């Protein structure tokens, strides 16, 4: 039991996270300091959780898509659309719950649309979701009529900046989603079916798995997660910025999933490790910020990280270091 726990802690993603945190600590000795103020926690670590939440939420949706050998490029644009819908509705006087529900519905519909293109029309995922990646931001701009729609709705602002039990609301939402989705895929057979479809869709269909339904589910979930992230980001800046909300975040989400050990070729996947991937990315961002380096460094360091991950997951590394450093082989306990 003890050995199993230790064994799991020794996985490459957690080691990498520990490494990044350690470097942050060396560069910025106050990195681990957490204080309690006005009924909530403050500190760089809390900041990592807060800022990392949107990408973590995107990654929770993205990991299922990637496990089916797909990819969802539209999540950034869907974030912008969801934010625009929520903001415009509250500004127009609708109560916040209606605005949130509408934004979530838009996200879900976007995801189902992607799923329809991939599952029913058999369009390659990268192209299918590119459609909405381009169109979605345009639609968001149409909704906001080109303006940044600002609002003062306390509920939306609470979702973006509030706190619960001392933790930032965004992080709480991400954690709740992580738990729900992990239970959903691992306590039911959905996870196995997703992996089966990702490994061999033809065989999955012949084995009696409704692969079309399943693809609709995973793309739908991805859209829904994108909408949640979009609402959080809008609440955070108290406005919907159709041009910039969620810009390029689809790439961060994909990177998080890949760092989490899920191969772009589909198959084995792990939701918690994808979230760890998102936290690693954010820990680097925050580390660079608090240690006083110019933020431009961020892009270079991120590129370095991508490079490192690719090397670790390459076939050559597999031969040199057989067991540990491979992508998720057996994600299940």
């Amino acid at each position: 039991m003890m050995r199993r726990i230790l064994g799991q802690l020794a996985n490459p993603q957690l080691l990498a996270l520990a490494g990044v945190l350690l470097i942050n600590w060396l560069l910025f000795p106050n990195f681990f300091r957490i204080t309690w103020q006005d009924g909530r926690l403050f500190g760089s670590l809390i900041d990592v959780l807060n800022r990392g939440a949107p990408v973590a939420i995107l990654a929770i949706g993205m990991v299922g898509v990637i496990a089916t050998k797909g990819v969802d490029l539209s999540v950034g644009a869907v974030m912008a659309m969801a934010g625009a819908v929520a903001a415009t509705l509250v500004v127009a006087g609708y109560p916040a719950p209606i605005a949130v529900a509408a934004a979530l519905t838009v996200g879900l519909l976007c995801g189902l649309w992607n799923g329809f293109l991939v599952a029913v029309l058999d369009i390659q995922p990268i192209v299918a979701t590119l459609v909405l990646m381009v169109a979605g931001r345009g639609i968001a701009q149409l909704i906001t009529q080109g303006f940044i729609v600002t609002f003062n709705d306390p509920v939306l602002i609470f979702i973006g900046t509030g706190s619960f039990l001392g933790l930032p609301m965004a992080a709480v939402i991400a954690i709740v989603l992580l738990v729900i989705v992990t239970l959903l895929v691992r306590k039911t057979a959905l996870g196995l079916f997703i992996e089966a479809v990702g490994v061999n869709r033809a065989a999955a269909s012949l084995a009696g798995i409704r692969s079309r339904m399943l693809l609709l589910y995973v793309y739908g979930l991805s859209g829904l997660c994108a909408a949640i992230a979009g609402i959080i980001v809008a609440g955070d800046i108290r406005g919907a910025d159709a041009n910039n909300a969620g810009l390029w975040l689809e790439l961060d989400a994909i990177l998080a999933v890949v760092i989490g050990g899920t191969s772009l070729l589909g198959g084995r996947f792990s939701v918690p490790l994808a979230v760890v991937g998102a936290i690693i990315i954010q820990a680097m961002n925050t580390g660079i910020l608090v240690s006083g380096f110019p933020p431009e460094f961020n892009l270079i360091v991120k590129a370095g990280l991508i490079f490192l991950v690719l090397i670790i997951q390459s076939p050559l590394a597999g031969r040199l270091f057989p067991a540990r450093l491979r992508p998720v082989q057996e994600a299940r306990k």
Partner: protein
Amino acid sequence: MVDADYALEARGIIKVFGNHVALDNVDFGLRAGEIHALLGENGAGKSTLIKILTGAYQPTTGQVLADGVPVAVDNPQQAQKHGIGTVYQEVNLLPNRSVAENLFLGHQPTRFGLVDRRKMERDSRDILERYGLDIDPASELGAHSVAVQQIVAIARAVELSGKVLILDEPTASLDRNEVERLFEIMRDLRAKGLAIVFITHFLDQVFAVADRVTILRNGKRIETRALDDVTRTDVVRLMLGKDVAFSGATGVQDARPLGEVLLDFRNYGRKRSVHPFTLSIHKGEVVGVAGLLGSGRTEMARIMFGADAADEGEVHFEGKPVSIARPTDAISKGFGFCPEDRKAEGIFGDLSVRENIIIALQGKLGWFSALNRDEQMEIAGKFGEAMDIRAASLDMPIKLLSGGNQQKVILSRWLATDPAFLILDEPTRGIDVGAHAEIVRTINRLRDEGLALVVISSELDEVVAYSSRIVVMRDREMVAELSGKDINPGVIVQAIANHKEGTAS
């Protein structure tokens, strides 16, 4: 083994993977101008030996000699330089490029630094002619049949290498005529002095074309013999190290009482796929399906299972009309289907043996009522044992198992769903003799337990042994239904060949 005229020789090859000895002191000599069959069950070490000869693996100890001179073969390019060319079962050429480009890929003739397409196509035409292929060198390779692609691959290997040709199960996806054509080419190349290694699972083909045979078992070389002085039984005995008896392989099935009708297909068909056929299948019987490749056998199986939807006719299950438009419809009624192309449609390569076994049962249960790990282990363990699946662990990825064991896993997958009706498409193709016997035994056992089975197979002896009726397909049409005394290979061949029903006279 003191023979100077070996074109290629391996001496004392030992290859160790971890703590597993894949090859144990194997000698292998290949003469110029011979066709040398390499036989062995899956896992006997055939592919390891081939990979050492072609430089894909390095031997732990031992030597490779070309024309009696020790050579270092570090990679496939170097093997090519020593005159060794290989053609694999799955043609690994570029289907979306032209035939000529495939022939010359990597060494295109150039003119002023640019590829001289005209010369390339002219040269290609000459080469193709020598292989009896009258196709346009500028046409896309993928547009041609597998057989033609196979011949192009051989032509490329011979042109590049020219001394030794290794054919790794080249006939697995060819029909009878295509195999014959391939054999002509092999004989032709032999006459020109090429040394050919021929790996196959079909003993008939070995005896039809090869001069000598080397048999491997468990990583050891058991025998190298001229085929003139061995019999078929000798070869099988050497491969297995024991005598195998295929149960009931002797001939006509005893007249057994048929169970009640389970399934009744009436004028069931699909446009451009299978002509409407009428067939009723009883509990406790095996209906064999014979016919050449591309005769509509697989298409028939697919519409029976709902993998393709029928657009004509109707089907009755236990007396009631039902609709089978997709696999889930079929599975909910207790159908199972082992497809012909195991790798593309059967296995989930990266998933474990355990998951591969329980997946159809889990699919039937639905996603919400998941089998937990212990239940999965129990089910997988039970069928793993019953089917004698040889895997180091049920948690290892299925792609690491041999073809025969993979086939047993897929069969187990359906048995775990407690089926009433199984469709097996070429269940014994490309698998070793031991797994073959196990699968034939299982077919007999399931029939005796009252299941209805449809078995498609190219091996007539085998179909004859376990079928109580045989349906013959030709040109996508069911042309004959044979029973009783007509169940023998002669009548079947006649029915396949000339469309006339081989009635008992």
